């Protein structure tokens, strides 16, 4: 018995030494001694960089495996098209996690390029890790035709109020409603007639009361949709023209400006009515696991979403019914309703102190915006073509003519649009989205909620976030 214990004790001691050695070893060298596979990759990259020929350009993204697959094709084309830069894309968690990581990483560990949502443009512009793209555009002697041919609404969404470009869209998403065309036809609802939340309510009621489907619509539970509905109407819910007149936003106008208040009130009342009358899928349902399958089975006639969900909806419909899209309805029936608020993901240059790598990031962003590349990505993913060249590309032509002809509605609407729809240019976009989502959710799930209280609560949260932000950054 004793002998056995000794063996055990010896084993423990050995294990302790081993584990300590393992820590000490990796700690002292900083670079881990990983598998041979790892080793063959790392030295190669560093030796290339050291020789001065090829600069490594790292790209942090929250795109998942499917989209990175498409992006990798663009990256490969770029890497092969020149011999100065080598781009590597690395997944860094979801949008929130990627932002958190960018914010808390020291300069020398940062990448040269990152992905970020268009609603967060002001947050990036005000951060210390993002270098506005305008700096590189100004220094570019070759010009950038695709930028000039980018949709106006889109270009302004990626700029500050003075026309300085912050980032460039890689995935131009578009807030919209998908609908089951066969079902709407049967119910006698003309999709083109749905232009406001009031129209949406009427259409849903017709569908549900007529027994054509269990639900009229499933909402996209995302706070950004709140701003989008206001943007469609040309309503600016923040002072200083949504922060675009050169002065930062200091005030949220949800309850102090009558126009803003009335639009929000109308929209939230309709959320409430639709929730109470069970005309919509319970608000908050996940679109992937819940709403799209319900659309596929004919239980739900419409889905509010963004255009990048197209592939999923088409897959789910599987040809059993025709899928159509209409632009996002406006919050109420007042206002111009001529703007097109942008959604989706852009690419930005990240300040990691390596000027050459950052220049490489710009070159890549430019390369990815060319007709062939941007057209390919849009057609593979369902995103909107960001510029004329992409729209005219062969790959995208096939997509809009054969794969999804319904998309023409979006381009017709874009062609008629002006720049009246603006995303609020505020650095507290996360708090804003969250407060808006809670407002829509409260209205839609609580039939007894007082809409004015809901508006005030949302406004108070946003105002508080604005105040603290402005205090701590002044």
């Amino acid at each position: 018995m004793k002998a056995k214990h000794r063996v055990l004790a010896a084993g423990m001691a050995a294990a302790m030494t081993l584990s300590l050695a393992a820590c000490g070893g990796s700690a002292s060298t900083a670079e881990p001694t990983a598998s041979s596979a790892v080793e063959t990759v790392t030295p190669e990259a560093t030796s290339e960089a050291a020789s001065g020929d090829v600069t490594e350009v790292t790209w942090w993204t929250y795109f998942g495996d499917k989209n990175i697959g498409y992006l990798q094709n663009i990256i490969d084309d770029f890497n092969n098209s020149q011999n100065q830069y080598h781009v590597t894309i690395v997944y860094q968690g979801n949008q929130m996690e990627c932002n958190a990581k960018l914010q808390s990483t020291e300069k020398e560990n940062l990448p040269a390029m990152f992905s970020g949502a268009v609603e967060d443009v002001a947050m990036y512009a005000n951060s210390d890790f993002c270098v506005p793209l305008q700096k590189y555009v100004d220094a570019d002697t070759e010009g950038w035709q695709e930028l000039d041919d980018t949709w106006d609404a889109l270009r302004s969404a990626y700029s500050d109020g003075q026309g300085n470009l912050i980032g460039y869209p890689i995935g131009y998403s578009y807030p919209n409603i998908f609908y089951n065309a066969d079902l709407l036809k049967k119910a006698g609802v003309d999709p083109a007639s749905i232009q406001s939340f009031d129209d949406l309510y009427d259409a849903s009621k017709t569908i549900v009361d007529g027994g054509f489907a269990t639900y009229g619509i499933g909402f996209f539970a995302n706070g950004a949709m709140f701003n989008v509905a206001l943007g469609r109407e040309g309503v600016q819910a923040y002072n200083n023209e949504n922060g675009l007149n050169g002065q930062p936003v200091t005030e949220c106008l949800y309850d102090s400006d009558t126009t803003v208040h009335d639009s929000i009130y109308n929209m939230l009342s309709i959320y409430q009515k639709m929730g109470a009358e069970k005309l919509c899928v319970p608000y908050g349902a996940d679109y992937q696991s819940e709403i799209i399958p319900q659309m596929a089975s004919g239980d739900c006639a419409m889905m509010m979403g963004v255009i990048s969900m197209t592939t999923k909806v088409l897959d789910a419909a599987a040809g059993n019914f025709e899928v159509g899209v209409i632009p996002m309805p406006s919050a109420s029936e007042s206002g111009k309703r001529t703007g097109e608020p942008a959604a989706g993901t852009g690419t930005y240059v990240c300040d990691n102190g390596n000027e050459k790598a950052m220049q490489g990031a710009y070159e890549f962003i430019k390369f990815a915006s060319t007709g062939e590349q941007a057209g390919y990505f849009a057609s593979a993913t369902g995103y909107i073509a960001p510029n004329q060249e992409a729209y005219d590309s062969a790959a995208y032509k096939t997509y809009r003519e054969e794969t999804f002809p319904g998309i023409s509605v979006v381009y017709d609407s874009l062609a008629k649009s002006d720049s009246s729809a603006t995303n609020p240019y505020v650095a507290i976009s996360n708090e804003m989205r969250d407060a808006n989502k809670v407002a829509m959710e409260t209205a839609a799930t609580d039939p007894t909620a007082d809409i004015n209280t809901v508006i005030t609560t949302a406004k108070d949260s946003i105002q508080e976030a604005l105040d603290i932000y402005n205090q701590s950054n002044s």
Partner: protein
Amino acid sequence: MTKAMHRIQRKNKFLPYLLILPSMLLFSMFTFYPFLKTIALSFFLTDKRGNPTKWAGISNWVRVLSKETFWKVIAITLEIAGINLVFTFGLAIFFALLSSQKKKGGKLYQTMYALPMAIASSPAAAIFLFIFRQKNGVINSLLGGANIGWTTEMPYAMWAVCIMTIWMNVGISYIFLLVGFRAVPQDLIESAYLDGAGVWARIWHVMLPMASPQIFFVLFLNIAISFRSFAQIKLLTGGGPANATKNLIYYIYENAIINGRYETACVQAIFLFGLILLFTSLQFALEKKFVHYQ
């Protein structure tokens, strides 16, 4: 205590400090230092990297504590923690007692009870979203085609969160309890049996007191875990509908990680720390009375 032991202890005056030194060094670096920083930050305004930018006095505290949402979140935190504590602890004791005696096929049951804990929260949530789905979800199908939005409607969303939490947490408590019950000397149980003690008497007078140190640990662990139910809330309901399942830890995550508002998160974190401390202190106040050490 014997004389021999006294002698050894006097000789080794520094030994206990030496024994706890490695742990304390690691704690200092990765727990005490950041938490002290947290306490300090609660009196500043911070940037998104968590660096202080401006002295704020107690204004952060006033702001956080005067917010209605905060107290609603506290109530939800207590509700979720309470439900989970009772059910996780109860079920784990039940299953551990059930399998404390060596039986054929016992291993299969042990694996069954403990397996859920092995599954990471994100695949677990994928499975639960499937189970809770409104359209053709497992539960709604079992209920004969019910149309309940398990993750989107109250009170079901709260149940969904609690069911998943309990499912995730029972396993580890079960294992620790099983170790405790298995360590109860067989001859004690047998002599109680020979004395005519029934099943309940044996559990009440032999098993539970003898395993009380381990039970005490499991209770402690459960308090800490149930106050910090996070992943399942993030993945199942996102704190919704309308903040109805948002607990304090989720609130802290939103502020610290998503919004980059560290000073706010710090105040809330100190509050959560205090809350867990309070309940753990209550537990320790009962240690002398109920825990039977050799």
